[in-house]
């Protein structure tokens, strides 16, 4: 400990000479020495300030290679999978999907790769969409090296719940690598739901990318709109149970670099789901506008007219709005930490 104190003395002594240094630097031609009293951080070098465009973003102006990833957040945002449809004898619609789990390395920030677990090779998985009362048949094949399940939110029998230990007598429960199982149930209630793996350890199985949006439309369709899929997610790249990169639809800052283009005065409907792991709460904030919010989408009457909503894990809701003015409008988590770690984007409103 003596050694510490001794050096601290030396250090202290050094600082006490700061005033002398200031005098000395004035005598010198360059004057590079700076007195301790100045506030160096306060005045920004204009060149340095210009380097970052004022808001957060990744370095080097790099962008993620969507082609290599096999999915593009700019396409995912409007990608709805209605499945293969068949008419049943009772007149109802049967919808069929194939979901394949696979292990895949994806790029989630420029140059930063993550060993993800995916449904159909993408994160988030496909947005499955149907109508209230449809018969749904989801064939799940596990091509991953780990056992998984598909657990749907909604109303269905126990053995179709995609939980280890349930429905094993009919081949369900935990689906081992190379195995498959078909989940079959009726769609309902109408609203915005989600599906995700329910294998243990749960947080890891979800956080690695095994989730997707599950939309059940009301029998009487909602008004036509420009519909958008937004899955709020994040990635714990160094396995410390804390996320390093936050995003909407996986790639941080994607919509900052490639704004979501919408039309002025046209109805925009956002399906928003929070699948964030390791952080208890997420939020959505829209700049310079307000939206009607339909929690879980289970009512056709909005619960709130606001510009900021919060969602806990698994919570979701539908947002409806129009943009009265052209231009760029930011949207991001109002948990600003998440925003500056990737969960930030732009709408670009164009005239009709």
């Amino acid at each position, binding site marked *: 400990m003596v*050694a510490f104190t001794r050096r601290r*003395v030396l*250090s*202290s*002594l050094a600082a006490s000479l700061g005033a002398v240094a200031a005098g000395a630097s004035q005598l010198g031609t360059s004057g590079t020495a700076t007195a301790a009293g100045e506030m160096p*951080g306060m005045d920004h070098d204009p060149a340095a300030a210009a380097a970052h465009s004022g808001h957060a973003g990744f370095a080097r102006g790099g962008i993620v290679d969507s082609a290599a990833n096999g999915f593009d957040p700019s396409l995912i945002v409007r990608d709805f999978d209605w499945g293969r449809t068949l008419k049943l004898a009772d007149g109802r619609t049967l919808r069929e999907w194939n979901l394949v789990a696979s292990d895949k390395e994806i790029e989630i920030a420029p140059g*930063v790769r993550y060993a993800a677990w995916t449904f159909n090779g993408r994160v988030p998985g496909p947005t499955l969409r149907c109508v209230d009362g449809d018969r749904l048949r989801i064939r799940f094949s596990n091509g991953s090296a780990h056992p998984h399940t598909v657990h749907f939110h909604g109303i269905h029998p126990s053995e179709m719940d995609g939980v280890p230990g349930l429905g094993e007598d009919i081949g369900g429960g935990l689906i081992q690598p190379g195995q498959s199982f078909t989940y079959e149930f009726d769609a309902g209630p109408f609203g915005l739901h989600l599906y995700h793996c329910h294998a243990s350890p749960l947080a890891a199985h979800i956080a690695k990318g095994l989730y997707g949006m599950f939309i059940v439309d009301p029998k009487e369709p909602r008004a036509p709109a420009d519909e958008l899929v937004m899955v709020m997610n994040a990635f714990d*790249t*160094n396995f410390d149970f804390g996320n390093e990169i936050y995003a909407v639809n996986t790639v941080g800052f994607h919509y900052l670099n490639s704004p979501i283009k919408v039309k002025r005065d046209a109805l925009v409907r956002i399906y928003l789901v929070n699948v964030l792991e390791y952080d208890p709460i997420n939020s959505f904030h829209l700049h310079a506008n307000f939206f009607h919010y339909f929690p879980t989408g289970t009512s056709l009457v909005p619960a709130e007219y606001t510009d900021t909503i919060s969602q806990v894990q698994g919570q979701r809701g539908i947002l409806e709005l129009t943009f009265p003015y052209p231009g760029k409008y930011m949207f991001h988590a109002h948990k600003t930490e998440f925003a500056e770690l990737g969960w930030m984007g732009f709408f670009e409103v164009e005239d009709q």
Partner: protein
Amino acid sequence: MNAEAAPPPQTSGARLWLLGLIPLALMAGIVVIFAALGAPGLAERRGPPVENLVVDKIALHPGVIQLTVRNDGPDAVSVRQVIVNDGFANFTSKYEQLTRLAADTIRVDYPWIEGEAYEISLLTSTGGVIPAEIPVAVETPEAGPGFYGLMALLGTYVGVIPVLLGMLWLPLLRRSKPSVIRVLIAFTIGLLVFLIVDALLEGIEIAGQGSQAFGGQALVYLGAIVGYLVLATVDSTMRSRGQAASGGAKAGGLHLALLVAVGIGLHNLGEGLAIGAAYAAGALALGALLVIGFAIHNTTEGLAVVAPVAKNRPSLKTLAGLGLLAGGPAIVGAWIGASAFNGSLVAFLLGVGAGAIAQVIVQLAPFIRNEAGQFLYPKSAGGLLGGIGVLYATSLLVSV
């Protein structure tokens, strides 16, 4: 056993060289072939790459946080993104990828504010996080004439002035009895023992931070061995020359004083490095009280230099030279430490200082023997403890 008795065969110098080089040449050949064949028989290492990037230094300039990193690990590391206080930040670096032992400077654009704390995460291509911390942000001084002037002044305050002040005890020493001188030399040894402990602890502390690729704490001990051997060699060379010239007790005293000055000088070089580095890193607090406290603390080093020459009549020039030799390196150290800080180098030099001082102690020790030839007796032990105690106490006095 018989072979040992046999005389070595007569061999020419060139042949001897050849005999020595053959194994080396064979080894080099094998390495080349092994590498060319792609290390046959050895499997690839399993598991993800080992990313062991070390942040050696953080410098703060207006709007910029600059990190000097070195790859201590076996695998190449790519820093692809930088997070400052929970937000991604723009940055530039020289290299896309750092191979083993490669170093780079990462310049992060960030509007940091003086006095605030920053947590930096370097995000690698595999998603790994290299953490770095700025406990208190203070602008790093840029090296310029004014800055070097300041460092010189600092070194003078810390090294030269206290040592020269301590040397002013010489007239008192001259009027002292031999028994008193012996106690004072014991006292000096006590001071030096404290300095060894101090230097080793400080060296180990510094070696523990930053890159470990060059040996880490081992550098302190290696430095100590080097310091001891170098000073021992210098000593024996001087001794043989001194005997060739005139020799005598007078020269012996001066000779010892010189050794003490060199030892303390090496110590102060390491000390200067630490001060300069601390100043450059902005890890500072201030107070005039501390200057005074430090002067008291270090003045005893001057006493150590002059104690061996109590019976001599060295010229003022010689004394000034000794003082500069003991204290001056603090200035050089401060310059180097502030402009090109390298933890490994500082740790090594602190070790060198400790080793040199150990050698000085070995040289001084015989002079505390009393008329009866005893080495440790109540007065000498008291002197030793006194020396240790004074530095310990003054170090407490100035600690804040």
